[in-house]
């Protein structure tokens, strides 16, 4: 459990047994006043663990925000133990701009955790989120998607460093009900919230789903049901998580970039397994000519894929290709 006693509130939102409360958590200062993240706290009728769930570290990834709000609105507080802290827009500046990175400094918040109070605005916000989560939460879930540019399958991700917190995060990741779990060790993820929390002893995981500048109700429901399953596995809600199947485990991720400018035309699907040499997609120029053919260098799980006809410059990240560690089963 979190080392410090639980505070009375997170920002202006209070823990009130049996109630759902709302408020704001100040993270930085804008020119004319505070920059605050909207917070909801669902407090159970009896003591128990604290689950921190946050969405929209990348501002355009709103599926998590809506899934988190849906879960918090419908959770039965009379049967719940502990509390769920919901941070609905973890990067308020990026959320307002509907941009992946913070517009003020261009930084990707999920690369700068644990942050710094003597750094850029993104690092100051990251520091306050990290410290608040670390000192109040027993487990943390960070919700992501492919945003406006890419589409991702429904999967979970935890930091695989062999520590007790990592093992606990793995158990939560498997409980979420996804067909795929990424056991991550890629160094470029080291500034992610879940990595820094796992290293400091708090089990933390990412849930990914959807994107591609579109949002179906099913994706919102995927997030809500994943949070519910994790809350069961974490002992906040009664019953078993309900996931009987063994997920497919994936590992090391290659980021694939275009070398030409034009429009990206996918030749596979997010969540598909592609063979080495198999076509991922093409870049077609304004004249309709194929300028670049992009293939996978290995047998891989397609963990993210640029949306159809995404306008791209050279250097656009259009796919994440993960090694397959083990295949799942029923």
């Amino acid at each position, binding site marked *: 459990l979190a080392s410090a006693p639980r505070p009375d509130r997170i920002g202006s939102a209070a823990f009130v047994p049996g109630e759902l409360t709302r408020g704001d958590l100040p993270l*930085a*200062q*804008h*020119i*004319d*006043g505070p*920059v605050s993240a909207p917070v909801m706290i669902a407090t159970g009728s009896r003591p128990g663990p604290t689950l921190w769930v946050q969405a929209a570290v990348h501002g355009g990834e709103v599926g998590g925000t809506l899934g988190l709000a849906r879960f918090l609105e419908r959770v039965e507080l009379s049967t719940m133990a502990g509390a769920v802290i919901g941070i609905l827009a973890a990067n308020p*500046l990026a959320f307002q701009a509907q941009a992946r*990175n913070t517009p*003020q*400094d*261009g*930084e*990707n918040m999920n690369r700068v955790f644990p942050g710094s*109070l*003597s*750094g*850029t*605005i*993104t*690092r*100051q916000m990251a520091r306050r989120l990290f410290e608040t989560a670390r000192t109040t939460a027993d487990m943390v879930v960070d919700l992501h998607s492919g945003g406006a540019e890419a589409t991702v399958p429904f999967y979970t991700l935890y930091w695989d460093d062999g520590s007790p917190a990592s093992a606990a995060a793995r158990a939560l990741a498997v409980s979420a009900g996804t067909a795929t779990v990424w056991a991550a060790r890629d160094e470029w993820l080291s500034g992610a919230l879940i990595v820094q929390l796992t290293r400091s002893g708090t089990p933390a995981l990412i849930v990914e789903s959807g994107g591609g500048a579109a949002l179906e109700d099913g994706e919102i429901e995927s997030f809500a049901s994943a949070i519910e399953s994790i809350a069961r596995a974490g002992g906040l809600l009664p019953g078993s998580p309900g996931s009987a199947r063994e997920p497919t485990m994936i590992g090391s991720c290659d980021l694939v*970039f*275009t*070398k*030409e*400018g*034009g*429009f990206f035309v996918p030749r596979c699907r997010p969540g598909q397994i592609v063979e080495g040499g198999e076509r991922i997609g093409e870049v077609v*120029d*304004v004249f309709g000519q194929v*300028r670049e053919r992009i293939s996978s260098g290995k047998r891989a799980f397609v963990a993210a894929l640029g949306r159809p006809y995404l*306008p*791209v*410059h*050279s*250097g*656009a*990240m259009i796919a994440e290709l993960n090694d397959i560690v083990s295949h799942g089963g029923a």
Partner: protein
Amino acid sequence: MALDPDWRSVGTAVRRPGERTTGFLELGGTPGGAVGSPVIVAAGGEPGPTLWVQACVHGTEVGGIAGIHRFLESVDLAGLRGTIVAVLSANPLALRAQTRNTPYDGENLNRVFPGKHDGSHSQQVASRLVAEATRVADVAVDLHSGGDRSHVPLYGIYWASGSAAARQASELAHASAVPYVWAATDSWLAHSFMAQMTEQNVPAIIIECGGAGQVGEEHVSGFARSLASVAAQAGMTHAVPVNEVRGIIDECTLVYNQAGGLFQRMVEPGSIVHETQPLGRVVDLLGHTLETVRSPVGPAYIGAIRKSWAAVPSGEMIAECIKLQSE
């Protein structure tokens, strides 16, 4: 030392002895076609080294372009030994958008050298710049300023790694007609163009001058005078190099504010401050002082200071305080 000393062209600009030609160096692709930099190749009548000079790695730092124009106007091509290659828009997307970082991927181009041919847009631009510069250049100068945000004094920077190229870069920096030289060992500069060119045995320096949204005559002439002196030091002209160095600086602290509001500057660019000396204050819209931002080190050279009345949220880079190493 250039990998290809007998090079014939940079992009579409061809080297013809005694002539000044122009052309286009492709640096990346967009949905609408290629992006790249206008290039000037000013070839002397006599053989000699190639001086690569580039501007606008950060898109708002346009003073370097004017400085290159002024410098080239002063060059007598018939008497010049060697060739000057001027890359006027090293980060084309940032210049077009008038932003410091590359708008497409948000990256700071001067933190990603030598780049990657299969990386992000900025990394690909960096990779192409380094490939072309190491192919043709014997010495390189990268021109910077405070852009639209900060006042920056005239000073030079080289990567003090101790290599033979770094020693040559030190000599170039000392001969660049600047009052202060930053003998840089700060790790966050390791992926600058200057550092990576020096690592690849091409002595390279940065010249900083001006900013705060202004390009004044003193900035244009400052860049031009520095470039002329560097060319003299490289043996390309008969002029005597100008060494006006008064102090050596290193170990830079980037100072950020925590309060949001309007910034009021309290120090001059290029001044020496003591530890805890106020650099400026942040006032709210009602006129109350919310924060006094102080130098965390001293004695330190003000390598950059945010302009007054800048509207700042928390986490803006207010100043560069660079420790004075010797005078």
